[in-house]
Structure formats: C-alpha cells, structure tokens
C-alpha cells in the first residue's frame, strides 16, 4: 500500500474527533439510502443549476464520510477538497430535508470543525 503523505495533519487528533462521534455518525452514514431526495431541499443546489456536487448527501459523504472511510488518515490536499464541500458548497443553513431523518447539517458541521482544527478553512482575508 502506498503511504499517504499526512504531513501537516495531526491524524491522531482527527481520529480522536471521529471516535467521539462514532456511533451516531457511522449509523447515519450507513442508513443513508443514497437516494438524493435531499437535493432539492438545498437552496445552493437549486442556485447552482442542480450541480450534483451540491447535493447535501454528496457533501457529507465526501467530507465526514470520507474521513471515516480513511479512518482519519488524510493528507492536506484531501482536507482542502473536504473544505470545498463543507464551506464553498454548504452555508450550513440547516434546511435540508431527508426522508429518513438524517441530520445532514450536524455531519457537515463536524467535518468543518475537524478541518478547522487542522488549520484548513476559508481565508476570506487572503483569497
């Protein structure tokens, strides 16, 4: 297995954060039917010409879902991609609707919090 370059990422701390919320997050990730019924409830999805990358489930699967899948072993580039999913593509307005009752904003918020701890967040002052 190729070793990933986790330089600059405190993977132990990421793992710790993931473990704190493990039961709920993993059950939520498992229960998601991957049906995309949540898509239209997101105003950003509607405003971005229904770009699939704005589907709420796409955003939590490719952020917190990815972190659990990799068990916290992520590099800076991946964290940057997660950042785009949880900040650029989500305003955390908490209006998404999932028929199963999955708490999408909470999942995205946790991904944000983990990224922020690792120094990955939008720098409006610089960008």
């Amino acid at each position, binding site marked *: 297995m190729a070793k990933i370059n986790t330089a600059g990422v405190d993977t132990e701390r990421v793992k710790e954060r993931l473990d704190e919320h493990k039961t709920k997050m993993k059950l939520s990730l498992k229960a998601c039917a991957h049906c995309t019924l949540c898509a239209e409830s997101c105003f950003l999805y509607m405003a971005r010409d229904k770009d699939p990358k704005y589907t709420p489930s*796409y955003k939590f699967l490719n952020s917190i879902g990815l972190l659990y899948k990799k068990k916290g072993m992520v590099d800076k580039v991946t964290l940057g991609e997660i950042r785009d999913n949880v900040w650029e593509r989500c305003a955390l307005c908490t209006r998404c609707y999932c028929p199963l009752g999955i708490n999408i904003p909470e999942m995205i918020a946790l991904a944000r919090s983990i990224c922020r701890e690792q120094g990955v967040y939008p720098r409006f002052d610089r960008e």
Partner: protein
Amino acid sequence: METSALFDFIRGPLAWISFIVFFLGLIFQFYRFFNLTKKNPHVIYNPRPRKKITGGSVQDFIKRASLSVFGVNPVMVIVTTVFHLCLIIAPVFLLAHNMLLKNAIGISLFSFSESFVDTLTVIFLFCGLFFLLRRILVARVRAITDWNDYFILFLATAPFITGYLAYHQTFADHYRLVISLHILAGELMLMAVPFTKFVHMVFFFVFRFVIESEYSLGKGDRTW
C-alpha cells in the same frame, strides 16, 4: 449426497438462524439508535405548530402534499412507496410462506391469492428496475453511488426474482435448485437488514418519530 445436505441446511437450520438474526439484530439496532437520544431538557419551542392531519378539505390536503417532498419528486415518492409496500406485503401474506410457517410453528397469517402476490412481485421488480436505471442514468444519483448500492439493490430483489422463477416453474427441471436459491436469497436478505444500508428502516422509525424537529412525524419529545 453432499449437495443434499447443503440443501437441507439451507431449508432447515439456516432459516431459523436468519429469522433470529433478523429479529434480534433489529432489536439491538433499535436499542443502539434510541440510546443516542435523550429526553429534551428544554421547553419545546414549536415555530410551526403541526396542523391536524385529519380533517381539512381536499384542497388543503393537496396543498400540503405539493409543498412536501411529494410535490418536488412525485414519481420517486410514488415508486418508493409502492416498492416498500410490495416488499413487505408480498412475502408476509404469501400463501406458500404461510403454509411453511404453519407447518413449522403451527400458526400463520392471512394470505392473499397467489396471483395477487405474483402481481405485487412483478410490480416490485419494475420498481427495482426503476431504481437501477436511475442510479445509472441520473447524474446526481450516480455521483454518490458505490458498488454497495448495487449490491444492496441486488440483495433486495434477488428473493423476488428467484421467488418468481420458482412460482412459475420457469426452470421446472431444476425446481429444487431454484427454490433453494430463493430460500438462500431470502435468508441472506433477512440477515442483512439490521447490519447494512437496510438499517434505514430502524433509523426512520427512531429519528422521524422520536426526535424533535420541524420534520418530525410523531410526538418528537426527545433530542440527540
């Protein structure tokens, strides 16, 4: 006669094992999910008091429906409702299943006619085909689809495909093989329910009914 022993195992002990795994697994997962919730310590602030579901004019009802997910995705909501109803009604009220149940434990449920259940089976399979095509063709669904989604869809439809083939004696010379595959498929699906994506069934009942939110369907007096 090695294969025969395998068939006997599939029809006998494995059937019991799968029922036990199914029911105990569901109870276990329900317990785990429920344990994630706690009594809401705050006074419930309800920004949008729930309208009475009963009563109201037909127009009111249509207006409510059109504002819900039904109004946004009518086809999907209809197909998924039919899919899930068939998924439960067809096997539970099937004469062949109830006869086996009667032989095994002496009690059985009411059964619909075989032709009716056969129709439900076909409808179910068309709904499954709809989901499959949607997964392949709709960009936003494809974007979040992985091999597990196809596997789960296969696991859910396999008992129906094999049950259909057995009932119609499509491969009459190999009936024993077909029915064994059916039973195996049914058992695998049952055992998978508590531990795979199928667990959304438990999730739905806990989180849409128990948790307080603007979308809760029940009393919703707990939080998480």
